[in-house]
């Protein structure tokens, strides 16, 4: 059985690759939207005022792609808690679960 450290590393590496694979085409999709549609109009002004037009107006649900990177430590923490639990290190499992809980709590701010 692999150590929790190795399992944590493996989960981060795998999820990071998947997220990168989604972000790269996602970038070109956002670029296409900005160049071809109303999203690009006044983008300089919106950026100067701290607004991202991709979040407002419901142009694309794909904007949620950008929420994938912080999802990696969230999911990995829960996986880490399971690894520690399997290794019978209950205190560490609890700490890892707390870490995942804080990340899920922060994520809930976005969803609420």
């Amino acid at each position, binding site marked *: 059985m692999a150590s929790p450290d190795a399992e944590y*590393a493996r989960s981060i590496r795998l999820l990071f690759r998947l997220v990168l694979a989604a972000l790269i085409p996602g970038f070109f999709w956002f670029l296409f939207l900005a160049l071809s549609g109303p999203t690009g109009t006044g983008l300089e002004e919106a950026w100067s005022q701290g607004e991202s037009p991709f979040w407002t107006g419901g142009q694309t649900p794909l904007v949620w792609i950008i929420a994938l990177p912080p999802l990696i430590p969230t999911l990995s923490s829960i996986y880490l808690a399971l690894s520690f639990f399997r290794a019978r290190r209950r205190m560490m499992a609890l700490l890892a679960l707390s870490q995942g809980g804080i*990340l899920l709590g922060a994520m809930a701010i976005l969803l609420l």
Partner: protein
Amino acid sequence: MIEPVWLSWLLLLFFASGAIGVVAVLAGVGGAVLFVPLVGTLLPLHIDLVRGTGLFVALAGALAAAPVTLDGSLSKVATAIPFALAASLGSILGALVGVNQDPSTVRFLLGVLLLAVIPITAFATRNLADRAQVSAEQWVPAHRGVAAILFLCIGFLGGFFGVGAGWANVPLLVALCGAPLRVAAATSGLIILVNSATASWVYLAAGAVDPLITIASVAGMTFGSRFGARLLPRVPQGVIRTVVLLLLLFAALRSILEAL
């Protein structure tokens, strides 16, 4: 100038992030601590978007490094988790307080923070010799309670300003917890992984993360860091470090002057 203008901003952001990535690796500092003040003062982007992107820059760096340091036994999850928990609680508070703050206040405080970062980067890390030749496996952190409180404060600053805070984590882990320098740097990466992700959710909820700005910056920083790592054996680090300190001083003074 390329039309539309935002496209030229995006290209500038990509190349600026790349240059920051090169310099950050050569100087041995985190990318976000350079990214936020420099991009915040050089490009006409709102400071909230820059801070939101700074967190993603820090997160991407930590995501790339964490599996390597864990596999290389330079860091242990078990030692990092208690500190990461404290830092992530601090970072969520910092992000909640910091997001949507008055931009002038943020710029002024960022300038003040940078004036504190400069001596830490210049002197503290230079004097941090490995006190004990122990591996991550053997290292037992000293003064855990005090360190956890300090990590809470560092996490707060990281969340507030959108920086990874490796500049504070590493000296703290070495000086207070007795970690060897390389183990401290690797453990700091694991802490940043969690606290930058926590604060990112808050910035995302506030709509302070633009996908175009963020992906262009993270991509530029990633390419720059890789190029910087190749240049590392050939470039005198002392010179680069001085350049970075001068850049930080420039960004600090400009942030303060802009805010006043």
